[in-house]
């Protein structure tokens, strides 16, 4: 029983980080109907910038999360300005996706050349503080991850639901042209979405750093799961993504416990393919069905 609970906690920690990464993909898909493959490398660069902020500049761990958030936001702005904005006029569905694969390959290999293939030991100062909860343990680091992720997700949710900008964003996601007629500038909102999405990814990177093996390819393993999550949750669907992210986190920790870590991707992706076959609109039914 304790093992089940313990793995449940681990799953939620992991799941909440996946949610942060997947939410970015889903937000961008919502307004642009495009996938950003380089999202993975924003996660990785977020982790590296947090690492170098701590080990190079002697900063603290919590400020380093803010640094990663900032780096992620800037990268998102660049991605949109350099790739998505120019390609939007051409109107192809697959070209932007292929271009982001190019950016991703470029960033991964640039990081490989600069940082090398040897994993970095990214230690958080909070990993050694262990708290007891009944029969289970939770490190301060994990508690921090859950708290920061939950707060971020709640803030984002409130932003989308109650602020003018958030409403404008949802309007653009529903119908860009009509939103434009209502005096909303869709291009600015797309940019804002990109910055938010990438800032979330960068921030998730800073918190994933101590969990993952930090190499230039760290983001790739996360992003393939994030893709699975957005499809399981329904592309463009925020609630579905949160739910699916937590589910995948739990699947991952229970698979590690009972089937071995090698089975994680297999279980997650078999689930993904089953979802695609049975219910391609995602866990929570979606209005958008043009791809299925």
């Amino acid at each position: 029983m304790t093992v089940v609970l313990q793995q449940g906690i681990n799953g939620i920690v992991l799941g909440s980080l996946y949610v942060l990464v997947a939410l970015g993909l889903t937000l961008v898909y919502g307004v642009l109907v495009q996938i950003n493959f380089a999202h993975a490398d924003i996660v990785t660069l977020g982790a590296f910038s947090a690492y170098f902020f701590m080990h190079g500049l002697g900063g603290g761990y919590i400020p380093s999360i803010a640094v990663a958030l900032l780096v992620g936001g800037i990268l998102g702005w660049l991605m949109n300005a350099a790739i998505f904005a120019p390609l939007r006029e051409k109107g192809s569905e697959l070209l932007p996706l292929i271009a982001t694969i190019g950016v991703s390959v470029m960033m991964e290999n640039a990081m490989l050349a600069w940082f090398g293939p040897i994993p970095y030991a990214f230690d958080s100062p909070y990993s050694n503080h262990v708290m007891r909860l009944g029969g289970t343990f939770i490190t301060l680091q994990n508690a921090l991850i859950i708290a920061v992720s939950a707060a971020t997700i709640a803030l984002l949710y409130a932003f989308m639901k109650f602020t003018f900008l958030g409403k404008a964003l949802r309007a653009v996601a529903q119908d860009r042209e009509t939103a434009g007629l209502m005096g909303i500038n869709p291009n600015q909102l797309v940019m804002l979405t990109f910055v938010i999405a990438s800032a979330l990814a960068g921030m998730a990177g800073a918190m994933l750093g101590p969990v993952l093996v930090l190499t230039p390819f760290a983001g790739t393993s996360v992003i393939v799961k994030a893709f699975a999550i957005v499809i399981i949750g329904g592309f463009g669907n925020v609630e579905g993504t949160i739910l699916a992210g937590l589910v995948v986190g739990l699947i991952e920790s229970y698979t590690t416990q009972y089937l071995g870590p090698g089975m994680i991707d297999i279980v997650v992706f078999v689930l993904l393919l089953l979802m695609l076959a049975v219910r391609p609109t995602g866990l929570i039914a979606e209005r958008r069905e043009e791809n299925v």
Partner: protein
Amino acid sequence: MLSRRAAYLCATLTIAVLPLVFPDAYWRTNLIVCALNVMLAIGLDFVLGYAGQLNLGQSAFYGLGAYASTLLIMRLGLPFWVAFAAAVAFAGLAGIVLALFAMRLRGHYLAIASLGFAVITYQILLNWISLTQGPLGIYAIPPPPTLALPGLPPIGFRNLANLFYLVAGFALLSYLLLDQLIRSPIGETLTAIREDEVSAAALGINCAAWKVFAFGVGSAVAGAAGCFYAAFVGTLVPDAFFITESFTILAMVVVGGTGTLIGPVWGAILLTVLPELLRGIGDLRLVVYGVALTLVVLFIPGGLAQAARLALARLRRAEAP
């Protein structure tokens, strides 16, 4: 323009001459890698450029071909060419299975489903240790058996030049096959599906069946490349078939020009040779794939093929004012 027959003759002559121009083992190895990549790229182009389906699972079919043939040879002791035929059929079947699965999906969903397929395949190769030996890899895979033609000295494939002739010959054969398919009504059918699936269906085209067909052919070609890869390298590890390999093949197709068969050939050659020429700059040379892919999509979405056409048109205009 060269007639097709003359073009094939030219290609055959080029293949015949290349190992003589590059006598050292290093460049002959690269020639073989070029030929393998050409097969992978034209196979993917058939699916992406003609049927219009973004398949990110090409690395999986490549790996399935390599592992299937190697295991049949080493575990069951089948002769190379029997194992080759079986592995090509197996990779083709795997492509058909993925396509049946993804029949209802389009665009991004298909891209992610095929990526998921590649991830699952990679993980199975990595974790089914009793079969594939996982990350330890399979060693001492024999090259294709010596060919004894009547009246000729035996042709051994430990010789890199002979192996190049074999692989490049099959690459040329695959090209010929795909070219014939594309020039037949099947090519028109696939292009119709690419341009507009609904209109194609309205013309009485069974889109699902033709997509399955395209996936089957494209992955069978990748499977053949996989067989030769295993026999050429002599060792197999799952890492050779990680999803990044799919991205590399995609880069070759897009840089060369999707929707033309000759474009991806040049794309594959360019992106195989260029990183070798750039060895001087260390690991940074691998950035070439990403840079080339991004720049081509942004500035010449038709790839090298489009750039060549534009350059030719400009030349003609300059000649005839």
